[in-house]
């Protein structure tokens, strides 16, 4: 049957044309097309990957921010706390210093007062002594105006000595 008998001419032309076609298309069509498709595919893949990376980074950044915020808040709290304790301490210290100073002042004042009192007492004593001596002198003078009184006196003194 003619239908299933391959013709030599057509075999020749088909082989030639198909062979050339493979090479021509491979060089001028398939290579650039597949190359472009591949380049684009890898570009898309890269873009997706970098987007993913960016998202991760963003997440990290956000976490960092939160951490930072948390830390800042903690620090603020710490500082506040410290300040409060410092204030309290300062106040306590001041109070203590003030009270000790006051004590000291009071003590000094007391001492001064005691000292002054002693001095005053000593002076009073001295004045009382000199006053007494003066008064004794005046009394003696008055009493010992006559000689009998003087003798009686001596006698009494002698008696006193005897008694001793």
């Amino acid at each position, binding site marked *: *049957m*003619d*239908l*299933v*008998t*391959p*013709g*030599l*001419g*057509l*075999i*020749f*032309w*088909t*082989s030639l*044309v*198909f062979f*050339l*076609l*493979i090479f*021509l*298309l*491979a060089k*001028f*069509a*398939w*290579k*650039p*097309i*597949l*190359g*472009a*498709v591949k*380049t*684009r595919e890898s*570009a898309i893949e890269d873009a997706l990957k970098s987007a993913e990376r960016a998202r991760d980074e963003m997440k990290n950044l956000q976490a960092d921010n939160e951490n930072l915020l948390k830390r800042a808040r903690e620090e603020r709290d710490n500082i506040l706390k410290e300040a409060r304790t410092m204030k309290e301490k300062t106040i306590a210290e001041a109070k203590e210093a003030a009270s000790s100073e006051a004590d000291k002042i009071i003590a000094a004042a007391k001492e001064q007062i005691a000292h002054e009192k002693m001095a005053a007492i000593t002076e009073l004593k001295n004045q009382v002594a000199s006053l007494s001596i003066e008064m004794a002198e005046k009394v003696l003078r008055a009493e010992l105006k006559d000689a009998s009184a003087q003798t009686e006196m001596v006698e009494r003194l002698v008696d006193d000595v005897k008694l001793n």
Partner: protein
Amino acid sequence: MQQKSVLLTLTLSFLGYGSTAFANGSEHEHATTSHEDTVQHVADEHAHDAHAAHAEGDAHGEEAAHGEEEAFDINEMIMHHIADSHSFHLWDTEDEHGHVHAVSIPLPVILYTEDGLVMFMSSAFHHDETGSHVAEVGGQRFINVHGKIYHASEEANAHGAYYEEHDGHPTNAMPLDLSITKNVFTLLLVAFLLLVVFGSTARFYKKNGAVAPKGLASFMEPLVVFVRDDIAKDNIGEKHYERFVPFLLTLFFFIWFSNLLGLIPFFPGSANLTGNIAVTMVLALFTFFVVNFNGKKDYWMHIFWMPGVPYAVRPILAIVEFVGVFTKPFALMLRLFANITAGHILVLSLIGLIFILNSVAVSALSVPLTLFISTLELLVAALQAYIFALLTALFIGAAVEEHH
């Protein structure tokens, strides 16, 4: 798949016999004879080979041409349409004397004879395909008998044709016919179209870089990627597929474009390129060579000394596998040929019905059916290209596969 090809080949041969029946029916001037009766009648009478039946039909056609009433011979019509030709037949005209003249585009005839290359236009045969018009070129005489070119005999035979015949076939010497026939023309056209379409697709990327495709590129790129990923990568494997992609792409698009061009019923389409056994044979041979030249150790091991089966069975398997090396591309050749030819025959038969029954009313049935079949053929065109490329990829995959 194999089953389908066999079925189509059967359909094809049935149509061959059946149409002879119609020719005989009209010879007896019984246009209304029922189909089944005639087939039965002819099947009994012409239970010999198709060649004889064909020749009879032709002889009858010749007679009818000289008679008053021209009988329609669907066998000749179909065979003429699916066979290769030395010209592009456009239409027939009838002059004032009632002679029928074909209007066709002549194609160059290139013959390699003992005296070297001979070239002339097919118009030198004056549309004759019965061998009754001798073309004299450079001192050599040629005739065209059903699209085949022979050296002409000195004297005409009883039918006025310049050839000796035996069993209805000319026995004259044939020069090596390297003509640009209808199929070769279509072949070149397909090659040209492929280069233009994919050349400009490639140019798009060269000009714009690896950007998102636009226009033609956006249409072609998914197909290219489909062949690369779904045909090549899936069947050959990640490791080896890349170097076979250009071959598979060329194969797929060549077959697809040829199939589509064959569906166009007028110039520059209409040639039955992928329904020609020579073309499918060459394509299958390419697959055969690509597969076997790339066969790895494991591939040959599996053919000649199948591991994992008893030693006694291995020689038997080796024979089976060795035959398989050839039957695989052979099946590829037949499948494409039979599918495309069957499609053409179906369309031609449906159109032919109008002329067999000699009634315009039949077109009410023929036209929708033809439309349906043609639409189906559009699908088949892509499907067969896909199957050919897919199976080729599968065979390559088996050849380059390495077992560990």
